[in-house]
């Protein structure tokens, strides 16, 4: 049965009509027309659907929308600043050309942002651990690690 649910997504309040059991992913993609979080497995195994929930990277594909009413939800779209400039992690992914098909990029960027929020200068092992939940099939892992390092280095430089 559909109910009215209030969500806080990318800094804005949204009101949606949805079955409270609907996974957040479908609400974000189909009702709020956001492309950042991707459907990958629906099983919380691949990370394609990651969003930031109160700053932490979490898969959205099994998370009932009713459970995140009072959480701050950020997607790739919300990382872009109002003046249209990219978040340093997004910028680093473009500069390092850290993708082939790019389908996994959402999970990688969201995981990396959460990681750098928690630890501004992670070492190689910490970066790998921080990205562990996100799968890439094209084999762009080495570029993704470089991009995270480069974003961390730039943040330190500031």
């Amino acid at each position, binding site marked *: 049965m559909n109910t009215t649910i209030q969500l806080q997504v990318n800094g804005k309040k949204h009101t949606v009509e949805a*079955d409270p*059991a*609907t*996974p957040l992913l*479908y609400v974000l*993609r*189909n009702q709020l*027309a*956001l*492309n*950042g979080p*991707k*459907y*990958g*497995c*629906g*099983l919380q*195994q*691949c990370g*394609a659907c990651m969003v930031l929930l109160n700053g932490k990277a979490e898969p959205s594909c099994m998370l009932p929308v009713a459970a995140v009413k009072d959480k701050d939800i950020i*997607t*790739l*779209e919300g990382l*872009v600043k109002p003046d249209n400039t*990219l978040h340093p992690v*997004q910028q680093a*992914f*473009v500069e390092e*050309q*850290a*993708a*082939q*098909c*790019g*389908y*996994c*990029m*959402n999970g990688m*960027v969201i995981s990396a942002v959460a990681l750098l929020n928690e630890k501004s200068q992670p070492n190689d092992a910490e*970066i*790998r*651990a921080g*990205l*562990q939940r*996100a*799968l*890439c*099939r*094209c*084999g*762009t*892992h*080495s*570029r993704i*690690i470089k991009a995270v390092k480069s974003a961390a280095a730039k943040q330190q430089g500031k």
Partner: protein
Amino acid sequence: MNRRNFLKNTGCLAIGFSLNGSFIDAPAPLFQELPQSIKRHPNINAWLEVLANGQIRIFTGKLELGQGIGTAIAQVAAEELDFPIKSVEVVLADTARTPDEGYTVGSGSIEQSAMAVRYAAAAARQKLLELASHQLSIPIDQLTITDGKICTLSGDRAVTFYQLLNGKQITDKVQSPVILKPKDKYKLVGKAIPRNELYRMVRGDEYYVQDLRFPGMVYASIVRPPAYEAKLLQLDEKALLKSNPGVLKTVVNGNFVGIIAREEYQAIKAQRWLQQNSKWSAGTRLPAGTDLIAYLKSLPEQPDEPGIKGTMPGDDANWIKAQYFKPYHMHASIGPSCALAIYDNGQLHVWSHSQGIYPLRNSLSKLLQLPTEKIHITGVPGSGCYGHNGADDVAADVALLAMAYPGKHIKLQWTRADEHAWEPYGSAMIMEAAAVLDSSGKISSWKYDLWSDTHSIRPGGEANNLISAQSLATPFKAKQGHGGGAARNSEPYYTIPNQLIKAHIFQGPLRASALRSLGAYANVFAIESFMDELAEKAGKDPFTFRLAHLSDDRAKAVIRKVQEITANVTLPANTGLGIAFSRYKNSASYCAVAAQVFVQPEKGTIQVQKMWAAIDSGEVINTDGVINQTEGGMIQSASWTLMEQVKYDAQHITSRDWASYPIMRFDQVPEVEVVVIAQPNEKAMGAGEAAQGPAAAAIANAVYKACGKRIRHLPILDHLMKS
């Protein structure tokens, strides 16, 4: 460079090209073969349009699969026309707009499409200069092209392409000889031009077929049988509708079952409900619990002529023998297959990430009995596919649903289990190699048998191989291709006087089709593992042994390069360095790979720590494209080789998610390093599949060096534990 290439290059390029834009005085090339795609679509405006907004629009029949083809094509077009690359728009495969270039496969997009665009753009350049000369009444050799404008040499007059054409397009045919820009004048080709689409991807802009949305769009799901060939016995539509609000329609045709719902989550819930509440016959039993190698070898085989060279010694010769095995592998795209369709006013429009939208259109025409002119397919990128995954099947599924529910856009997103359990896999293969060494330690005789299912059941314009077509009440019968690439790279690239090579093509228990590099992955894994075994018997190191059997300098160069870049690697205890080489298809890119592997057999742990590759793909269009493909190829192959195998029980596939079909995660992924040996004067050759085979053998060879265990059966992790 061989003589024919030498003539081709110097004849048409180096002579008569001055600093100005005109090469009208240049002598005709002595030899020029136009690209195949140009022969099929000779008109310049099939490939290129000049737009009023100051841009150039390029059409390619290929689809972006993450290989960066759009950028490479923009580079060659901008290069030939001296046009700003940021003003070049590339339109990907669309049956209403772009040339039919068949399938985006076999690392052929650079060789076919980028070369076609190069010739079309060069011919356009010549035509534009002629037009400018006529309009401005200035001799053509007094004109040049700078930044997309045709200017006089003095710079006092300039005209844009659009002004020259006045809204018309260049309809002339591309005719040989086409005078191409000399390669030493290149500013864009051969450079690492970044791919613009990454900016769109990273912002979450609309990019993938999964991102398409239309007003009033509805969502679908498919209920597959619980086994191959299982028949639907009972399905209670009324009960379904009662328990599943939001379901708009069920489409049942034989064993094809589709659900259309208002919301995506409703379609998924209804799929789950039907999986629990419909009855099916048992279907075809799979050979679970039996030894797969023995089973596959027992299957009937298609007749095949062996390849023979020289004369074979008898069984009494001192044969060294080994058997290798590769299980079924998945494409395992991160995003499961997806397609959208609408049937409206007698027209069917499909949005698909298929690698071949033109063949798919013909297939859908036969499936739906709808003329091809009533079907429009727009190619839209999906998740990386690495071959024939579910892309065509999901498009056929949604087309069937659209025909049954007209007037609405329908989106069908396969679930993870749909993709894992029903995509066509890369066939399991058995490879048996035998060789005789002569007194100097060189291979004198070579025998090689391979057993494999086909490596292509792509629809190819027929409906027969689409899952849904085989499920209908009046079903299409599956067609098996012959081998379809099983024998790719089965002939060693080494100089061996006596050879006997035989392919045994069976029809295996699982649905199989094209996976990145087809049979080359397993054949190169076997040949290059065996080369290391033979090198040891001959008392030679793996580099020297390979080099001694090669006559092609470019092959030797990639091996020597890998030797050079790994020369100072220090190997701690339990660590080994392995190498391997192949020339993809024995006619495309040369690639040598080294792997450094840490192994603790008693604990069953193995870590591929680092991999290096040297690759020669001839002329390189985008250096970073070649590096990215080769890095990714090594990592993907490392995952296949170490840990991947499709599992099944008697009923069906049991590898239905990432827990039951694990692929490499960040904690296991090696560092990678790639050296590109650019050959600007050689033919451009696709690079996307070159690393798959050598990477596998380099890892197996490194495992042997690290711990003395020769793993001949994949996946390595499984067999390391057993050994």
